[in-house]
């Protein structure tokens, strides 16, 4: 076992996927010579050559659209969109094309591709570099949406996504790229999609989170442990497919749910989780569900982002609200 950052773990997943299957190719802006702006594809051009690691023109819609054609022809493309805020330019190809090629053609053609994109705030990036776009993608049938929160899971989830039969959007939490190191198994392994992880077991309040909100939940759990409050932090890992059983099981046990996400609250994915609990676990609840989210405003300038993003303090206020209700 070796200690790895998330960037290194993702790089290893790509390398191993390309070793396992000749059909795996990488395309995107600056993924070759530069190794990606975050170096996730570092060294892959040298290792596999320009026939498999493709520096493309600066064109998000074409990157995803070309990947659709590659996948339909039999390759397994892994496309990188440099920042999730630039996904908007490729949304037509993702939502109207990649997501529905299988449905449109009755299964005759499919698009088993991965679109990787760094997302999320807190790193003082320029405008449009920090958006959380997961809800848009989750509301696009045909796509899967995966969000890792640790290096070891990032590796296994990316390998599973690359070999999944469906188009997967793989959102990489930018603040976690190099935040921690952990033991990452050397051999290739897949973390199956559709299985949440209990990041921290507890009896009193369920905190549902993904991406960079998972460590936020764990910090809240540490702070509240001194007061005798036990949080159960659920790392959803994949939003589509959603592991509703793990979430509902936890809520039935704790009877309290706080959802925390970086995206704006209205019609965010937290609304889906709250609705799910209302439909299937309402009578287990001791308190109304609380959502701790960004406000319904465009992602602000970096000097304001700490006020925009959920903080540990805000999360703890939300937790106190469900405890005191």
């Amino acid at each position, binding site marked *: 076992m070796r200690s790895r950052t998330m960037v290194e773990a993702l790089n290893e997943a790509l390398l191993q996927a390309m070793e396992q299957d000749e059909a795996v190719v990488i395309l995107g802006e600056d993924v070759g010579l530069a190794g990606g702006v975050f170096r996730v594809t570092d060294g892959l051009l040298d290792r596999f050559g320009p026939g498999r690691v493709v520096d493309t023109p600066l064109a998000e819609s*074409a990157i995803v659209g070309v990947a659709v054609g*590659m996948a339909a022809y039999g390759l397994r493309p892994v496309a990188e969109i440099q920042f999730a805020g630039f996904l908007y330019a490729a949304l*037509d190809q993702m939502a109207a094309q990649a997501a529905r090629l299988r449905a449109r*053609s*009755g299964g*005759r053609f499919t698009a088993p591709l991965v679109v990787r994109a760094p997302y999320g705030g807190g790193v003082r990036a320029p405008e449009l570099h920090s958006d959380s776009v997961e809800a848009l993608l989750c509301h696009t049938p045909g796509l899967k949406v995966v969000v890792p929160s640790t290096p070891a899971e990032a590796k296994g989830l990316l390998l599973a996504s690359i070999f999944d039969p469906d188009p997967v959007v793989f959102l990489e939490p930018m603040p976690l790229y190099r935040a921690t190191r952990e033991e990452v198994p050397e051999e290739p392994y897949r973390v199956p999609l*559709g299985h949440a992880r209990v990041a921290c077991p507890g009896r009193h309040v369920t905190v549902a989170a993904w991406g960079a909100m998972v460590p936020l939940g764990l910090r809240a759990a540490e702070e509240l442990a001194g007061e005798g409050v036990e949080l159960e932090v659920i790392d959803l890992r994949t939003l589509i497919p959603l592991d*509703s059983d793990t979430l509902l099981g936890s809520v039935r046990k704790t009877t309290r749910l706080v959802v925390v996400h970086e995206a704006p609250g209205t019609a965010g994915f937290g609304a889906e989780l709250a609705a799910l609990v209302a439909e299937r676990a309402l009578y287990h609840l001791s308190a109304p569900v609380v959502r701790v989210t960004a406000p319904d405003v465009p992602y602000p300038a970096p000097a304001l982002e700490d006020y925009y993003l959920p903080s540990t303090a805000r999360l703890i206020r939300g937790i106190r609200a469900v405890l005191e209700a």
Partner: protein
Amino acid sequence: MSRPLQLLDPQGHPTGPIPWPRPRLVELYRWMILGRAFDERALAWQRQGRLGTYAPFSGQEAAVVGTAAALSPEDWIFPTYREVLAGVMRGVPLSRYLLLFRGHPLGNHVPEGVNVFPVQISIASQIPHAVGAAWAAARRGDRTVVLVYFGDGATSKGDFHEALNFAGVFRCPVVFVCVNNGWAISIPRSRQTASETLAQKAAAYGFLGVQVDGMDVLAVYQATLQAVERARTGDGPTLVETVCYRFGPHTTADDPARYRPEQEVLQWKALDPLIRLRAYLTSQWGWTEQEEAALWKEAWSTVSRSLEEAETVPSPDPTWMFQHAYGAPPGSVLAQLRAFREER
């Protein structure tokens, strides 16, 4: 700007040597007749309620037949809703496309082994797909050429630019066929771009663009053969602009009298690609009335039979939509499918 490539003038006189033997010429003519017969019947069937919204293509037969005929069996095409004739030429049963216009999901299910993409409804979105398939083919060392259709309106869209730009950079084995029928619903070609031709846009992407008389099937055929050869031998993409005309409405839901004068339609109908090739066959190859009648009879019969086939296909299993949404469906979809079955 040079004039569009032409091998037959509007009267069917050759403007130079024509290298193909009679059977090849008759084959092109046979496909154009099938297309015209299909189009006329489809319009009538739509009015009878036997088809849903239909996008007629009369006037565009040469642009479609001349391009699709230039391909080899291993090649791929990416058609729009107005190039179903190309799909038929490549092996999709006519009845499949009738199912498409009848709203049946099987209509876009292209049989295995037939390298025809489902028809694209969104304008220009299929162009990057074609480039991706062409890139993949080249990477695998296949000799496959990819041909993609789009209209004049599509050249205004970002995906046209991004895809042609990409193909130019990587010299992908792709042939871009712009079926310029003069109108994107009500918007004339002059309002899509200030460029003198659409073909000239290729220069900006670093490859050849050719403007062809799209009412002359032999010119279209020759230009596409050359483009396919360039693609197959590693010389990269070509943009072929076929200047033609949509005789009918954009779709059966459109009324072209609101935006274009009847006089213009009549001028273009005088350039009918079927009449032109027939005149040439008659004057140069002894084409007879009997042969003409036989082709039409065959076409009407094929078309009628295809509707009979389509009408005998049972209504789709309603669970189709669940079954083809994902390769590995999320639990929510499986639960919805179970609930759907229980409610029925």
